[in-house]
């Protein structure tokens, strides 16, 4: 699975490089075994079916949440200013 994850990330033309995050030498060794993995178009098509492009699968590390999503008053003019006329 780690090999698939790394290969998937680095296959993308918008991705220059993907991070390994090993904690132990064993984990690094295993990750390095996957360096020569090539994902075929068939595999990528299958992944696209399971997780359609555009799907946001990882919100955990996204630090920025627009304030307007958190505060409704930022999405609304004062009542008296809302009408066009």
């Amino acid at each position, binding site marked *: *699975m*780690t090999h698939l*994850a*790394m290969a*998937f*990330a*680095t296959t*993308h*033309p*918008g*991705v*220059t*490089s*993907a*991070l*390994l*995050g*090993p*904690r*132990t*030498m064993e*984990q*690094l*060794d*295993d*990750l*390095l075994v996957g*360096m*020569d*993995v*090539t*994902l*075929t178009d*068939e*595999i990528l098509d299958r992944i*696209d079916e399971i*997780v*359609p*492009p*555009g*799907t*946001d*699968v*990882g919100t*955990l*590390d*996204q*630090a*920025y949440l*627009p*304030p307007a999503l958190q505060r409704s008053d930022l999405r609304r003019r004062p009542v008296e200013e809302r009408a066009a006329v």
Partner: protein
Amino acid sequence: MQDNPVDSVTEADKAIGTASTERPPHLDHNPRSRMRYRTLGRTGIKVSPYALGTLMFATAIGNPDHDDSIRIIHKALDVGINFIDTADAYGDSEEVVGKALRGRRDGVVLATKVSRPMGDDPNQQGTSRRWIMTAVENSLRRLQTDHIDLYQIQRPDPTTDIEETLSALSDLIHSGRSVRSDHPRLPPQTSSKHSGSPSGVAWNGSAPSSRPTRSLTAASSLRCCRSRSATAWAYWCGVRSGRDCSPAVSGRVSKRTSAALASSRRSATSVALTPSNSSSHSPKRRACR
């Protein structure tokens, strides 16, 4: 998966093998001769497709054994990985990386970050010029180096004017402390207003088109494309690809190479990036309430 990777790799390997026959024999045993290095954005800097993240070294959730962590770093370098990413807020990670890179610094593209809180002091966080200038010196000291190859804003700081942050990053490049800076997490509406860039400072100004958008929905976040599994965090640590995004420019700038500085400024001009102090090109600021 028995035939797919083999065929394509074999073809590519043949091409590499052909080229390698013209190289000195010792290079055939050099793992770097096999690694398909990629260009980081349009900087001209080549990095391995696998980068080594260091969140798991000397942090509360990571490997407590510094020597073991250093061995892991050396192993990664030995196989041709040349891109190491750390952060000031990753516990003692910067110190460990600094130790590991003694004598090997020149072969590494070193990235670190600023912005997350580094103590109880409310000013020891964020992206103010005041803090960036202090934080970068702290990182340089811990990393035992005189320059950082990629200096990243780890988190956006809505309390600091973006011009303040970008001009500070630009100054770091001009002073030689950072080769390149990146502001990976600007909210889209902010970054889109800043179509001009100080030389060497880059950020995500537009959403990558086409396939990239599976996980790159925010577009402004370089790190939003992340797959997580038991032992690997694979998230996007690269910069924008030339195909999908607007130009980013950087030049190798250091105290030693003032000529390169002049050159990088010229190249910046050639792609219509503007100096940070060019008021005539500064985006109009809107009143925000």
